[in-house]
């Protein structure tokens, strides 16, 4: 079973629907026993880093998540879930989980697109990912595939952890992590077939582990 971490933030149902569609057993939960017994955890999220961290701390989930990850439980962080894995977010200047060194920054209003126009914020829509490293979650996904993004802050992890990069006004890290712990700024559950493939690749990894 894949646990979808419930920390009362944002839309958890879309990840669940995608896993249901893929026939991947899953449970939306904040129950620590279930998180422990799961094959892997998806840390979804839409919303603000401040309230997300508050909810995690209030339920003691911050320490649970940290210790599970340290013990090798596979985890996939999505969007806000990916940002919270880092040390701090400039969004509400929040101290986040600190599982991977790094921080989040806001897209500057001074950035321009290819035709010289100021970029729209949030970065909303479909964009490419240039993989800097091989990543098992992207296995079988065509190189030109695009993924759905919607965010105003972007992750800036320790460069050693960068897996994929996306261009929007600047090159930012859209995928980072290491074996068993991945974080993605885009929404695989809303990125059509390539996105679904990432989720099923994550499940395959969890099964093999």
């Amino acid at each position, binding site marked *: 079973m894949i646990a979808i971490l419930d920390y009362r933030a*944002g*839309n958890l*149902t*879309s990840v669940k*629907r*995608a896993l*249901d*569609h893929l026939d991947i057993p899953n449970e939306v939960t904040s129950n620590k026993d279930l998180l422990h017994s799961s094959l892997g955890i998806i840390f979804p999220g*839409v*919303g*603000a880093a401040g309230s997300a961290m508050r909810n995690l701390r209030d339920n003691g989930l911050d320490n649970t998540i940290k210790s599970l990850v340290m013990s090798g439980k596979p985890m996939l962080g999505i969007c806000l879930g990916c940002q919270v894995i880092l040390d701090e977010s400039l969004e509400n200047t929040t101290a986040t989980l600190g599982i991977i060194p790094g921080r989040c920054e806001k897209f500057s*209003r001074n950035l321009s*697109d*290819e035709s010289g*126009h*100021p970029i*729209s*914020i*949030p*970065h*909303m*829509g*479909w*964009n*490419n990912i240039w993989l800097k490293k091989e990543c098992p979650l992207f296995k079988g996904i*065509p190189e*030109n*595939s*695009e993924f*759905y993004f*919607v*965010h105003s802050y972007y992750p800036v992890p320790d460069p050693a952890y960068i897996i994929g990069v996306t*261009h*929007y006004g600047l090159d930012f890290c859209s995928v980072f992590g290491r074996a068993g712990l991945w974080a993605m700024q885009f*929404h695989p*559950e*809303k*990125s*059509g*077939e*390539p*996105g*679904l493939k990432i989720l099923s690749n994550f499940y395959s990894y969890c099964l093999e582990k």
Partner: protein
Amino acid sequence: MLSKRIIPCLDVRDGLLTKGIKFEGNVNIGDPVETARLYYEEGADEIVFYDITASAEERKIMLKVVEKVASTIFIPFSVGGGISTLEDMRSTLLAGAEKISVNSAAVKNPGIISQGAEAFGSQCVVVGMDVLKVEKSRSVPSGYEIVIHGGRKHMGIDALWWAREVERLGAGEICLNSIDADGTKNGYELELTRLITDNVRIPVIASGGAGNPEHMVDAVTRGGASAALIASIVHYGEYTIPEIKQYMHNNGVKVRMDW
């Protein structure tokens, strides 16, 4: 590099698909869930559902449609039409919509934009603007006026002012519909589109007037829109989404070509 989005709009009444010309003479042309699946498979980047009448009873039917769609397609979709309270927003988002679109309700009660953004995040809140070209006046200096009820009621509000205002209130996106162009198939109202895209920093979806793929190229280049809304030209099979995207791609517009 961010792709320009192609967004089919499905008008729904009583759980069935309709598309009207200038908001009159609607006819049913199919099942919204099946059609959404078809457009998903054809490479639509997003889908908009517009509940045309949206009485309390019809809203319940619509929520069932939204739930079915959310389990069938895995791209973002938004729902609009008659959404006027935070509770409407919440139930629609929980049913699986990615975004909700408010139009008349936001004009009557702008607070709904900030409340929605606060409760669910700006990315969830699309503000639909129905705009009519009028004589420039003191209350409407841009010569573009906000109208509601499908263009029947003039609000005396300047469209440019309103666009900036909804951005300030926390809207995540604007869906800009020209009542003059809607249903004409003569192309999007590019002057209006450019006026708005030059003056806000949130993404703008151009709507109303799509007749061929060249119009969509214009909307995202000359108009500066982030996305183009389409309806009849795909509903009635004049063009398919892959044809439209191929044309845009051939004309140098970045669109999502692999899906």
